[in-house]
């Protein structure tokens, strides 16, 4: 589903990824400085009410990035949930609540947040440099404290896994982000208007060096852009390109599926749609027996879309059930279904005759290896019953800042 190959950029083209990291960081640092975030007085103005730039820039950025990702997901160029799973950390309610309060306290004491302290340092501010040093000490000190069991227990308390606002509202992964995004945008624009009014009221008390920049024409231009993006995001959910009905699952050849199942079984989830009896007798290793009637119980539109879903029918499957189409991640259909699998993987291949090309020899070796690996196994144990709709996707470990 994800159009841009960020996985390969991180994995194989690591150096290129690091260069992109410097470029993106450059944009981040440049923008923060130009917004005035290299200056402590401008930042703390937020907490004394005379300059609400922190709030405006931060919510402006959140809404822009959110709507951008909503629109790209609506166009099928990205997958909101997949990106969110990858780039956002899991929710640990209590440490996040307490950590937020302490970070806010540290913010008003030091005058910077960790990111803006780097920018202040780069622009020559010695108080920024002191904050940078403090953050380093604080990070290491807390990491050391984690060896105390009580601290570690608190650090991992309130673990709710990957939890997103649309999960809380029980919305599916496809329509959820645009709906919540609209609500956030409306709220943010309402708050922006309120912030302008508040600044006008408090302006007389302001330090002239740290006066807020009024919204002006470019502000209205940004509001209009946000409104247009929000409407586009919502419209794309309703358009045919955005619905699952238009989704054409790709087919996977038995050879490729066999490679996946043997080499990287953690990357695929194979659902066998044949009736339970046939599936119970013989099935692809690691597959789940899910007759089409039971598909709805899997809650495929809610589960973590990280793995590729592969559907196996008796033969070809021209129109996959809509429950499967609701799955957020990659969806594949086994070409030729079970019959093709049986013919390919479970019957011994003909040894190539003399004069066979190297490619033919290679294929024979692979098939022979697969055949012995797949048939040499003990008879499969009785299939596990299909699991009922899981409440939430699997949890992942928490990361540091942005990891």
């Amino acid at each position, binding site marked *: 589903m994800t159009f841009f190959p960020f996985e390969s950029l991180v994995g194989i083209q690591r150096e290129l990824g690091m260069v992109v990291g*410097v470029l993106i960081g450059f944009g981040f640092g440049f923008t923060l400085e130009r917004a005035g975030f290299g200056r402590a007085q401008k930042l703390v103005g937020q907490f004394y009410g005379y300059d609400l730039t922190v709030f405006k820039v931060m919510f402006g*950025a959140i809404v822009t990035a959110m709507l951008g990702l909503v629109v790209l997901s609506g166009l099928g160029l990205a997958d*909101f949930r997949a990106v969110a799973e990858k780039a956002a950390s899991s929710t640990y309610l209590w*440490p*996040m609540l307490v950590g937020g309060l302490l*970070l806010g306290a540290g913010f008003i004491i030091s005058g910077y947040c*960790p990111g803006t302290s780097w920018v202040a340092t780069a622009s020559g501010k010695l108080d920024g440099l002191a904050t940078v040093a403090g953050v380093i000490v604080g990070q*290491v000190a807390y990491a050391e404290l984690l060896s105390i069991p009580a601290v570690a227990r608190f650090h991992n308390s309130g673990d709710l896994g990957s939890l997103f606002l649309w999960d809380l509202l029980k919305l599916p992964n496809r329509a959820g982000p645009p709906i919540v995004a609209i609500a956030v945008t409306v709220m943010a624009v309402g708050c922006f208007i309120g912030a302008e009014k508040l600044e006008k009221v408090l302006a007389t008390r302001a330090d002239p060096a740290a006066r807020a920049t009024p919204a002006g024409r*470019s502000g209205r231009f*940004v509001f209009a852009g946000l409104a247009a993006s929000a409407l586009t995001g919502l419209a794309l959910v309703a358009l045919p390109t955005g619905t699952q009905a238009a989704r054409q699952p790709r087919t996977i050849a038995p050879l490729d599926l066999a490679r996946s199942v043997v080499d990287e079984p953690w990357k695929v989830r194979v659902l066998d749609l044949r009736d339970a009896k046939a599936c119970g007798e013989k099935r692809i290793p690691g597959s789940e027996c899910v007759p089409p009637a039971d598909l709805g119980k899997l809650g495929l539109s809610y589960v973590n879309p990280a793995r590729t879903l592969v559907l196996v029918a008796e033969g070809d499957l021209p129109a996959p059930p809509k429950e499967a189409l609701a799955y957020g991640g990659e969806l594949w259909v086994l070409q030729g279904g079970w019959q093709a699998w049986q013919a390919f993987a479970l019957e011994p291949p003909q040894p190539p005759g003399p004069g066979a090309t190297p490619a033919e020899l290679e294929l024979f070796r692979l098939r022979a290896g697969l055949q012995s690996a797949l048939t040499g196994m003990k008879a499969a144990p009785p299939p596990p019953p299909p699991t009922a709709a899981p409440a939430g996707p699997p949890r992942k470990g928490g990361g540091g800042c942005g990891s």
Partner: protein
Amino acid sequence: MERNPDKFWNPYLAGAVLGLVLLSAFVVMGKGLGASNTSLRLGVTAIEAVAPGHVAATPSLARTRAEGHPLDNWLVFEVVGVLLGGFVAAYTSGRLKKETLKGPRISTPARWGMAFLGGALMGGAAYMGRGCTSGQALTGGALLSAGAWVFMFSVFGGGYALAYFVRRAWR
């Protein structure tokens, strides 16, 4: 280019540009922005120079070495970019100057002490909250993570709660 140190970008325009930077990180890298994790990595590097065995014996520090050297990480390169971007922006706007920013009623050493203290508090808090204002509030907030929104409101809550008591540092 006009160099007026008191002239800043329109906040909404700056927000939109920052949002596009964040969006490009999402789309190209599948990552968000971050700042505080690099601090941990710098700290680990320093500790390794002083007490080599200590990092390996402490799991919470050793995990920064999962990819090899603690500084061999995307977020570290991103912060290098932040420093470069901040420097260029400060230079071109006339704000590049060695100085200490503070309110009129506080001495410079006291301001440094408060900056360090506040930084240390934020360092611990950012580890606890799985990210700081960049990595958690901004990135997670844009991705509609429930925990990030809790964190973000807490940050504003903590700041407002303490603002009155430290007003002497600023006003």
